[in-house]
């Protein structure tokens, strides 16, 4: 048991037993940290987030939140993971493709889990949802269906839906990748607001400028391993590992960003 806020130990994930996507991942983060994971496509960044959320069965290792183990591989069977669902439910996640429920209104999307899974009354859930939507400037959209919203609005609703469950940590998996460039700022702006409120976050993004702005720590991963783990100031200006430098050079078309 560790005192870290989030503790990933010896995490190994393969698909079909041979395609190893994550190999012996060990990392810890403290509450209020904002860890951005960068790396080439197929390096396992999204899979790492999906494992922390419990969306993927892991082959080996364990994951703890606030010192409590909530996911652990079963050494006898790869298909069978130990999952402590109440602890896992303290983790919130937002996906690249919004994943709003298209048949429910914005308000319906927000209050479904609090009402049906957590036993909150409709009036209380609605009140909290409307407050949150108000804060995000989406109050007028409460009765709209997701199909009627812009990409940026959808993604902010998706973030609001996760926030309404009071998560201890939020996972963001390429949440701006599907958005038109002019809509990216409204979503990033909301994430920066959450950062100011000291929300713990793990973020996978291809946007290095945003990574530099929001991260307290940056992890560079490649081939299913963590290659470098450093504060953004070091990572983007003076990376230790040649592979990190190579990658940053490719994605930024310049040596470093200042």
């Amino acid at each position: 048991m560790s005192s870290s806020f989030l503790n990933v130990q010896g995490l190994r994930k393969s698909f079909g037993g041979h395609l190893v996507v994550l190999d012996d991942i060990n990392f810890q983060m403290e509450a209020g940290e904002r860890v951005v994971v960068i790396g080439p496509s197929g390096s396992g960044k999204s899979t790492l987030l999906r494992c922390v959320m419990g969306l993927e069965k892991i082959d080996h290792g364990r994951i703890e939140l606030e010192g409590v183990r909530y996911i652990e591989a079963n050494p006898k069977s790869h298909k069978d993971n130990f999952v402590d669902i109440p602890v896992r439910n303290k983790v919130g996640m937002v996906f690249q493709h919004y994943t709003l429920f298209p048949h429910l209104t914005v308000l319906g999307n927000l209050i479904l889990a609090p009402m049906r899974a957590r036993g909150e009354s409709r009036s209380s859930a609605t009140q909290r949802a409307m407050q949150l939507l108000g804060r995000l400037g989406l109050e007028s959209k409460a009765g709209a269906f997701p199909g009627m919203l812009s990409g940026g609005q959808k993604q902010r609703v998706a973030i609001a839906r996760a926030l309404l469950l009071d998560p201890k940590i939020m996972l963001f998996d390429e949440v701006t990748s599907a958005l038109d460039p002019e809509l990216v700022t409204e979503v990033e702006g909301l994430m920066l607001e959450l950062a100011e409120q000291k929300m713990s976050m793990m973020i996978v993004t291809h946007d290095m400028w945003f990574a530099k702005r929001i991260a307290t720590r940056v992890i560079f991963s490649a081939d299913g391993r963590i290659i470098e783990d450093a504060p953004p100031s070091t990572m983007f200006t003076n990376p230790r590992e040649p592979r990190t430098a190579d990658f940053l050079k490719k994605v930024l078309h310049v040596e470093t960003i200042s």
Partner: protein
Amino acid sequence: MNITAALGFLWDYRLALFIGLGNTLYFTAVGLAFGLALGFLVSVVRQVGHPVLKVIATVYVEIFRGTPVLIQLFWFFFCLPALLGMELGNVFSTVLTLSLYMGAISSESFRAALKAIGSEQRDACVALGLPARVSVPYVILPQTVMRAVPTLLSNCVTLFKESALVSAVGMADLMYQGQMIADATARPIEILTATALIYFVIAFSVTRTVTFYERSYLSRMRL
């Protein structure tokens, strides 16, 4: 042809046609009720059922989709009672055939709709901590039904029209009544045209409803 005379002639037989239409709607409605329930069940079995059940369900669906309804009707009217050595009753045989046929074609619509719900929706359910008792009735089922509605309504129209075949085994549906009047009066043009028109008006309204539903509802939700 004198239109007024033709309409007057049809008016004389309105009751017979009306009874026929009533029977057609009855066979269609009962076939739909049992067929839709069976179709949903079969689609779920084919998705998550025991391997043996899956094979049985698949064989059933393929047989009923791959043979003419007319043969199915004859088989349940003449062959099944002979094999069982007992009377089944004409209405029972009719309803049984139509239900099994509808079950087979609607199970495919349900199956396609179930498959169309992406894994991302399931991921969202996990990320929101929704247990199956919440995610199935509030997320998966409504989307399945909504997606399946257009094809299911088309299936209904198909069943409604195919039900005319029950006239071949002597059931007094709209088609049968039309044929009888045409034979008795030797005026097939008026009667068969009127019968076709009745089928058309009903089928066409359902088809238009499908289009309206798809345009207004499904497109709004971008399902």
